[in-house]
């Protein structure tokens, strides 16, 4: 086996050296009755050529990967500068472990410190961690953190949050005696209806919203923050489309206490849903309640600056069941990719990307809105996603669009909601050319008509 340096002969010698005759004796401490006597039911080894062939064949069956697409809803096609993959492919980065030994891990540590800083800058917060698994688990951890901080059990969540994020939150909190109360959606604006906020009380740990929300509508974050704070509750803001941070008022500037986001938009491949990276940021005063790893500045005896994992007393390897979270391995390499993205695009590139997304989405929305039989049900301002109400069942319409026009036109909302059979969610980014958008519009027209 080419990944095992020692040859069979060398292994024989080593067996002798440790006083054994047969390799099987290495497992003498395993009771015979539970040893596996037959070979595993796994096919025999494939050579590189055969393996590549097999995977290329499977990849070809993913037809959706290679056609124009207007899917968003928590995973976005953005342009990723070529240098990202080159740099994260340096084995000094991708074959290193969590930086437990700072003297020989400064590359990773400094990169994480830059990541934490960039996340703070974009979210408008004061402190950010080294990453969470993804946006959905970050949101769940934010709810648990709000409970730790406020010692309150009631959490009010917007129904306009990504349905899969809400599902994950339900799973995480189910054994904490936390109830997640849903806030309805205002069918006019597409925003979270703030009426129910009247029920905010001194048992309320937090209000949780997403902006832009699942329907692409930008929430009135600042107003909601005021209401929450008035009741002594925290405001947790989730962002699934981080590209929006280049244009929209940052959650921090709007009064959020905890901001979680999906960082996939920052140069991370769609890869059928993962690995992505969760961004987690909050206020300095809550730093010791943060889940996950934190990197901080430190100095050696000669006063040279370096970076280390810090505030470890929050973490499972020290605090065990009393830790702020059970997370250990996080999304290091993906956080690195996002860091390289943010630094390469930089101040102006992040702004320009957001601007192009908003403009192209506006163009697409206008063109579709003008089509016979199609309407845009929601009035609130949007970033790069919007709901379209079709003249007929959206799911069927989109499958015809895929098979007849080879375009993935968006997401039929019936996947998550009852009573929205004719609605679908369209996402437009800087990667969608005007020609693609026009083809989508034309396709929708011809299929409906």
């Amino acid at each position, binding site marked *: *086996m080419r*990944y*095992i*340096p020692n040859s069979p002969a*060398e*292994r024989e*010698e080593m067996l002798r050296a*440790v*006083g054994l005759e047969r390799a099987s004796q290495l*497992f003498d401490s395993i009771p015979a009755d*539970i*040893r596996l006597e037959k*070979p595993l039911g*796994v*096919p025999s*080894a494939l050579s590189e050529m055969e*393996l590549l062939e097999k*995977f290329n064949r499977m990849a070809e*069956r993913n*037809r*959706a990967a*290679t056609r124009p697409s207007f899917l968003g809803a928590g*995973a976005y*096609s953005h342009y990723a*500068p070529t240098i990202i993959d080159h740099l*994260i492919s340096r*084995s*000094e*980065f*991708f*074959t290193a*472990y969590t930086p437990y030994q700072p003297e020989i891990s400064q590359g990773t540590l*400094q990169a*994480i410190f830059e990541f934490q*800083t960039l996340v*703070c*800058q974009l979210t408008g917060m004061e*402190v950010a961690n080294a990453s969470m698994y993804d946006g959905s*688990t970050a949101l769940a951890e934010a709810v648990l953190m709000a409970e730790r901080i406020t010692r309150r059990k009631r959490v009010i969540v917007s129904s306009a949050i990504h349905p899969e994020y809400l599902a994950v939150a339900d*799973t995480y909190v*189910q*054994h904490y005696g936390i109830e997640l109360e849903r806030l309805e959606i205002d069918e006019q604006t597409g925003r979270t209806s703030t009426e129910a906020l009247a029920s905010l009380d001194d048992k309320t740990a937090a209000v949780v919203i997403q902006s832009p929300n699942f329907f692409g509508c930008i929430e009135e974050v*600042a107003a909601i923050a005021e209401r929450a704070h008035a009741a002594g509750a925290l405001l947790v803001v989730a962002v699934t489309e981080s590209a929006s941070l280049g244009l*929209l008022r940052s959650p921090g500037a709007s009064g959020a206490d905890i901001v979680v986001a999906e960082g996939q938009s920052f140069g991370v491949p769609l890869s*059928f*849903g993962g690995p992505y990276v969760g961004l987690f940021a909050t206020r300095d005063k809550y730093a010791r309640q943060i889940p996950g790893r934190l990197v901080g*500045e430190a100095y050696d005896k000669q006063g040279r600056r370096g970076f*280390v994992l*810090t505030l470890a007393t929050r973490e499972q*390897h020290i605090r*065990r069941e009393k830790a702020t979270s059970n997370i250990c391995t996080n999304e290091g*390499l*993906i956080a690195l990719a996002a860091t390289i993205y943010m*630094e*390469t695009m*930089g101040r102006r590139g992040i702004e320009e990307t957001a601007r192009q997304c908003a403009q*192209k989405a506006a*163009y697409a929305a206008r063109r579709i809105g003008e089509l016979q039989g199609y309407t845009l049900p929601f009035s609130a301002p949007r970033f790069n996603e919007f709901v379209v109400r079709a003249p007929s069942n959206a799911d069927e319409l989109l499958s015809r669009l*895929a098979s007849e026009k080879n375009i*993935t036109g968006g997401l039929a909302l019936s996947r998550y909601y009852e009573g929205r059979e004719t609605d679908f969610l369209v996402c437009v980014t800087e990667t969608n050319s005007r020609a693609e958008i026009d083809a989508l519009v034309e396709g929708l027209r011809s299929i409906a008509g």
Partner: protein
Amino acid sequence: MDSTNITKVTPHISHNEHLIFERSQEGRIGYSLPPLDVDETPLDELIPAELRRDDDLEGVPEVSEVDVVRHFTRISTWNYSIDLGMYPLGSCTMKYNSRLNEKVARIPGFANLHPLAPESDSQGALEVIYELQEYLSEITGLAGVTLQPAAGAHGEMTGVMMIRAFIDARDGREASAKRRVMLIPDSAHGTNPASAMLAGFTVKAIRSTSEGFTDLEHLREMCAAGDVAGFMLTNPNTLGLFEKNIREICDIVHEAGGLVYMDGANMNALVGVARPGDMGVDVIHLNLHKTFSTPHGGGGPGCGPCCCTKELEPFLPVPRVVKDGDVFKLDYNRPQSIGRVKAFYGNFGMMVRALAYILTHGAEGLREVTEAAVLNARYIAEGLTSDYEKPFNAPPMHEVVFTDKRQSRKGVHTLDIAKRLIDYGFHPMTIYFPLIVQGAMLIEPTESVGRQELDQFIEAMRSIAREAKENPDLVINAPHSTRIGRLDEAAAARRPILRWKPKESASAA
């Protein structure tokens, strides 16, 4: 030659690379985008000013592509990595990360596939997931598999929640409400209790015997209380020893109405040799980023599949990937499921790599890996016994633990030995874990190390043992060969600086 008393010399320009924010210069550009190709609408008509940023992204770096490439290439040279040498972190299984697997995961048909694309147009991806589930089921001897968890700890949470859901269903909420204790050995990894906590369990510790095994007496005792929902154990345990009484342990727990959770972080000692399912284990998590070689990436991404018995299958997270004829489907209709633990389907990119790992090895290769990994650990155990104290006598499996007992008499502790090892060109072993061993040094070479390098490592450790006797300060002040020395972690934690700030406001950290 002594380079340090030479004025103004930095051994290499890459040794003083600052933070990117310190490199940033207004007006530098590192990106390129096509010109906007649609007619532009005034922003105010799209998004009112009060909803837009007004800070002009102040502070976000402005650098050229060349700046970025040099920045990350330089700081990368400050890292140790598997490709540079042996990385014997016990419990972490730092094995070779195949380039082939990296290539496969980047095939556009996988890398560019949107998770919400129609199932009919994502069959290849669903096939990858399904096929990997099948092999992991075969390897663990357990029927049900979910690949949704993003890492080991996430898999643990998933597994213990399933145990809870199962007991709720079996005993009814009321009765089960009295079963809220999760037993965990004092040698367990910190994520175990933390994960049990997330499922709302109370954690009680089970002692280990002086031989390094689960104390059956203590286990019986605790089980007698009748409030035990389960027992989470690692096997081989975190001392690198196979729990030879595993069958009996499972029986005890099962008779007490509990379930057995196995932490599969150490499966590199068992693949192809013994299967948790055959031992009586009910549910286990695997770390694809350990046993199945997906890269650690400096701290992730991981993938922590959870495998369980038929009985527990109904409680697995949704959606599940199932095969119907020769079509692969997402099955959401699982009423007893604990729900979702992550958006979409987990860290798919890692699944592609792990499947490639399994298919590249085949049945024989997988067993060969296990044998080679255990043999390497044995070889090190043998090589170091004369110089370092081994707390337990049982032959180690894939990793071996030593203590600093002898060295500490001279004031040289595990941390010092670890740092000194850096001067010899090796990444240190896992230190101070497991907690039950004083100054633990947990060494896991994995199968990816050849004999010469093992001998070099043994020689280095022996030399350090000699230094500890003859010249302790040399060890205590190590490392001597790195870009920076030991950092003052205490000070860093006392007044944490967790982000860069522009000079003027730096004080206001």
